[in-house]
């Protein structure tokens, strides 16, 4: 996410406006708003000419015609309100077609909502009008891979990495795409560079372990998956793989114990997944947010509880729900005391 954050930060700086002055995101009818946003196909937005923004760069600031909408979208983005991002940007893109900053943020919001074809559509449009921004479009590769367009994803990652060779997440994405295309060697080569650049990237260690396991190189897989597990102790995936590796190495007791760990983590993830999925499109829903916090509490994940309470508090404030706010305060106290 570093690239996105940098992009957003630059945009904020150049518009010289603080978030405190940004318009608030409306809370009422959030569900309806979300559904309206999701019913929009990005294909229907008006188009600018190809290369219309080939000289555009973010340092030049945001076009005043879209500035207010863009800031509204940024505010929504920071609050994980991705439908809010779409709702803010679509009118802006109707008045200033294919404006690069708007397309970039819109593409990322679509990605976060797991609307990969829409993300691909938006970011492809971005590159059509502003090809110089290719280094900022790794999410296009991610989305293409997610919908099975692996060959296109690989080609795109190559372009991104030519422009931004230091983009670790693009390289990790290319490794995933290579893996999906059956290119184990290329995937491992990319992953080797990724973990050298950023050894804290648990997903990279996990994918490395998965590939070694698939190649039946159990010792190498074990080393990698232990790193992944240390970095992502609440993620069931490393525990799943480690249980299988241990079993195949004949360490049956440890394997069984790890299987139980996996099943418990998976149980927790299975409870969280539908709530998180619904929150992607209905981010201000107090009931969902409360369920999220309670589920995180049941899993004993203090950090996640803290994050969930922050979101719930923000939503309750905007909704003016004093009862929920009081509950949040109480829970925050309990969470910090535990």
């Amino acid at each position, binding site marked *: 996410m570093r690239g996105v954050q940098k992009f957003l930060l630059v945009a904020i700086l150049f518009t010289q406006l603080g978030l405190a002055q940004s318009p608030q995101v409306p809370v009422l009818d959030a569900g309806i708003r*979300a*559904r309206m*946003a*999701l*019913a*929009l*196909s*990005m294909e229907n937005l008006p188009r600018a000419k190809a290369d219309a923004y080939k000289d555009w760069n973010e340092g030049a600031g945001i076009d005043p015609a879209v500035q207010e909408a863009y800031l509204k979208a940024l505010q929504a983005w920071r609050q994980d309100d991705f*439908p809010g991002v779409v709702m803010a940007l679509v009118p802006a893109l109707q008045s200033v077609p294919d404006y690069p900053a708007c397309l970039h943020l819109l593409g990322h919001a*679509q990605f976060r*909502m*797991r*609307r*990969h*074809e*829409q993300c691909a559509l938006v970011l492809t449009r971005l590159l059509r009008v502003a090809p110089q921004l290719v280094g900022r479009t790794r999410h296009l590769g991610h989305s293409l*891979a*997610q*919908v*099975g*367009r*692996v060959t296109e994803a690989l080609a795109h990652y190559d372009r991104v990495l030519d422009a931004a060779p230091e983009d670790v997440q693009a390289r990790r994405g290319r490794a995933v795409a290579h*893996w*999906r*295309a*059956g290119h*184990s060697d290329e995937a491992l080569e990319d992953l080797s560079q990724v973990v050298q650049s950023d050894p804290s990237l648990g997903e990279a260690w996990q994918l490395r372990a*998965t590939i070694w*396991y*698939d190649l*039946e190189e159990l010792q190498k897989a074990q080393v990698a998956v232990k790193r992944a597990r240390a970095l992502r102790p609440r993620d*069931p*995936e490393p*525990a*799943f*793989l480690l*249980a*299988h590796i241990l*079993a*195949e190495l004949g360490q049956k007791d440890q394997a069984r114990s790890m*299987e139980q760990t*996996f099943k418990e983590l*998976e149980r927790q993830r*299975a409870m969280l997944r*539908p709530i998180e999925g*619904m929150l992607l*499109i*209905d981010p201000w829903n107090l009931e969902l947010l409360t369920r999220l916090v309670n589920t995180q509490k049941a899993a004993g994940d203090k950090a996640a509880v803290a994050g969930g309470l922050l979101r719930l508090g923000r939503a309750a404030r905007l909704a003016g729900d004093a009862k929920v706010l009081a509950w949040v305060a109480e829970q925050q106290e309990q969470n910090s005391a535990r």
Partner: protein
Amino acid sequence: MGFLLMLAIGGLLPGGGAGDWFVDVTNAVLPGVEVTCGTAGRDWIMEVNGGGLALVDLNRDGHLDLVVVDGSTAKRVLEGEKGLPPRVFLGAEDGAFVRGGEAWEMAGDGWGTGCAVGDVDGDGWSDLVVTQWGQVRLFHNLQGAGFEERTAQAGLPQEGWHTSAAFLDFDGDGRQDLFLVRYLEFDFAVHKPRGEAGAQWKGQMVMAGPEGFLAQEDLLFRGLGNGRFEPAGLGASAPSTSEPGTETGQGEKTTQPRKPSARAGLGQAPAAFGLGVVTLDINQDGRLDLYVSNDSHPNHLWVAQEEGGFLEQAFEWGLGYGANGREQAGMGIACADLNGDGRPALLVTNFSGEPNALYLPARRKGAYRERSSRAGIGGASLTRLGWGTGFFDGDLDGELDAFVLNGHVYPEADGAGSDTTYGQQDHLYVGEGTGFSARPLISGQHFVSRAGVAGDLDGDGDQDLVVLTLDGGVRVLRNEAPRVGRALVVQLIAREGDRDAPGARLELICGEQRSTRLVSTAGGFQGSQPSAIHFAMPKDANSWFLKVFWPGGGTSEVLGRVSGEDNGRQLVRVEQGS
């Protein structure tokens, strides 16, 4: 010739292109067979899965017959009306089907879902079990002259949402037992329709489920050999009532099972949203195991134990989850030995956003790897929601191919941002040594497909397809793939038990090629496949050697000379003991 003539005058359905292996010949051979499963809006999960199909030679005239299991509607259920009846279509000489006469008529009953074919009373004729949301039904085959319903005395469950079913002889007594896959507890009076239920998918209101519903455990029934069944070993609390020498309800003495104390032990795994089942021999110990695909739960692998009963071992074998440790929405299953080493591969169709999972044996015995991406299936299947599936050798090149029938559960999938569509192209995965290449089954055709079964409908040795779609009726797809080799079709005739010898293992050596197959009518999704085994032989081969391992012991060996008899196929009947 008749078939070709009908093709010429009967008209083909739109779609299809040069290079397609299949041609839609529905209008010519099986026109106008509609099916019902709720209404087009799909307001309840009950309306989503569709009905079932069986291809079986019911009257032993050498042509495959078709059973179509039909469903019902919420309106019918709420008004106390019976569901639509299952239908029989008898195969004719020219590859066409004609509606079975009055003798084959079956009354409507509950909401039909699937079917299984097996000889439940050992009279040498294939009987039919129809699964329903409701009573599981048994139809006795009157020696090829028609069906007689014998549900009342069969002892099969009256309630529950049964999906797929499989016959197997789990206790080795020579009688066909029955495994019933079940989905979830559903009631129109209790569960709310789309919109009211509050269920959402990608921001759209959709029908609710299966999440939030109560899963139903699968069931195993011991066949008593007289058309009756009894529950077998749910957990450890249901002992056999057919111990050696006891009298059954009809006064017939049972024969002694090989494992008289056998209990199924199905209580070891939590209930799951079960949809598909295959019988297989996962560890090559000669005992039939069961693999069950579960929607939104880990899949189950029931491994038969020497001392009797089953142990659920999907996790240990690496067959429970996807490669990333996630449970998937298992729908249908294809199962076959892809490389001739005797170890089966499993292909499980899944939800959109998940790859169809291809589980291949690892080097170490007792372990599998999910390798759909490396095999060329994963990426191609990501935007599809798969159902019926099967391995078959479409072009007779000795490499097994796979068909996967696709179609979403939500009509809302056609909305923006879903990354998928409601109607979808069915897929053909062409086997190419180490992997598969994906292509549409028929270019340009998009259907909401569900169950599907492969079988040689026109007697030319290659396998055609029958496909059930939600809103497009039943389709027949004729295999027109360019043939690389020749077809050898083997029909086993067992001396004891089910005449079709389910559970028999076949090994064929032909030229450089070694292939193994297991006789099983279970597979795919809510369907029953023919018991005949199809092999491909290289064009330049002169002879072949076939070894049959019969269920219950004993082998047969046959050395044959390659011939192109009978419409391009070589048909071999192997009788046990001959």
